[in-house]
């Protein structure tokens, strides 16, 4: 069974973080919320594994 990777896993974390912020530049709060939602859905689909997704949802809720 696969587990959510909560270790650092992105090469170039500063670049990723900057890119994440940059797609929100100039957007209204509503546009940013919509973008975040689309991003979550695309990433969730990419992960696909239901168990990993459930773990991520719990981890994001700071409940584990």
């Amino acid at each position: 069974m696969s587990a959510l990777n909560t270790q650092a896993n992105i090469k170039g974390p500063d670049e990723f973080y900057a890119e994440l912020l940059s797609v929100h530049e100039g957007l209204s709060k509503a546009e940013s919320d919509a973008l975040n939602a689309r991003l979550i859905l695309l990433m969730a689909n990419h992960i696909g594994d239901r168990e990993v997704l459930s773990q991520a949802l719990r981890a994001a809720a700071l409940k584990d």
Partner: protein
Amino acid sequence: MSKIFEVPLYPYQRSADQDQATPVRHKVVVVGAGPIGLAAAIDLAMQDVPVVVVDENDKVSWGSRAICFAKRPLEILDRLGCGDPMVDKGVIWNLGKVYFDERQVFGFNLLPEQGHKRPAFINLQQYYFEQYLVDRVRQLQAAGKPIELRGGNKVLELSQDETGADLTIGTPDGPYRLKADWVIACDGAASPIRNMMGLDFVGRVFEDNFLIADVVMEAEFPTERWFWFDPPFNRGQSALLHKQPDNVWRIDFQLGWDIDREEELKPENIDRRLKAMLGEDISYELEWSSIYTFQCRRMDRFHEGRVIFAGDAAHQVSPFGARGANSGLQDTDNLAWKLKLIIDGKAPVTLLDSYDAERVHGADENILNSSRSTDFITPKSEMSRIFRDAVLDLSERYEATRPMVNSGRLSVPCTYDGSPLNGPDCEAMPERTRPGSPLVDAPVPGGWLLDRTGFGFELMTIDETAPDVVDVDGIEIKRLALASADDADGYLKQRYLGDAKSAVYLIRPDQHVAARWDHYDETAVKAAVLKAIGR
């Protein structure tokens, strides 16, 4: 021109029962001559159980109402001898389109699986559906079957003890009394019987209104289901267009919660909505309009002593997914054979507990699916709307999120996983035909598998020998012998054998799988039959 639903089909006629000094006792009284009540009565009468249907009206239902009938109910109707007129008249459809704002987001094809007699869905007005059922009642009467349909008969009072129920029936000639060993209440979501008995009907109320306009028009639209989220002609709400026979189109507008019903139902306001949707130059005739709200709720259990509830009387869902009438027909499919065995003294009365267990399971599945559709169509919070819109926006470009788009998860038959009636499973065989599942149709020599089964227990063997008849305490189990040599297209292998070399399936009278093995074992079969009848 008068429409079908304006013509009395079973007008009140004085019954001899009304002139008796002591109330006449009947085996089964069905309350309500809607689709579910009629199906229940036909099912019982075909098994020679005498049945009287009482209904306060004398016509089929007013307006189209339920319009979408799924494959499993059509198979049940085939067993009841009235599938053909429904399918011949109905509109068969497979394609759907989803719109968001001004854009088409995507189209889908239900891609019906090959090797089935019946299509995935037909659209048919409820009044035709009921009319064909009434036709079937008349046919059975002509053949001498014990079925009676009494229009203008309204149940006023009901009481019961452990042997049956006492009913007071109101008629144009005044009230009379009846006794019944069993009462089946198919009297709709507002069930007067349920109310008389003071039984709970709890669940979730959805704060929303929907306007149905069924219009007759010569339109060029294809036979597809079109669904709009937040379209320009109905901002912030949804809409649906779906074809029925006779050029009748179902148009459904979501209205929201705070509305003026009378105002919305005025023809000039419906006209304004239709023109905004379909163009200023459309010409149509409004056949039926109605505003509905809905709830998702069910009774705790579906029988109380000698009174059994079926259809909307027992459980109610939103219309998204066509799970109302379709699930009601699965109720009576589940009930009729059990009641027959109980009445014949071959099964204990406690077999009815399995009706509760199996159909409550079905109702919960329907309520869950229907509630989820409703939450997608009408987001209940700001974040819920943000995600809903994100799913729709992405779906225009990517396949990834299309499976999440939920404009109604269309009714599929229920598998009775965990039912107390289920016997042994064989793991080498396909999951879709595990115990509790409805049979999956397949072509067999001389016709279709589902046409070869029903009403009695059967032992379906594939490449395995077994006796032609097995008797279990007076219940005859007939063998249906199939062979993979006759299975050129591989349907039996795909649907029943899987990795097994041979198969023995015990099939219930409602065409559900009770148990299965890879070889015949008389002791095991007998034990499974007893389990399947609650002994």
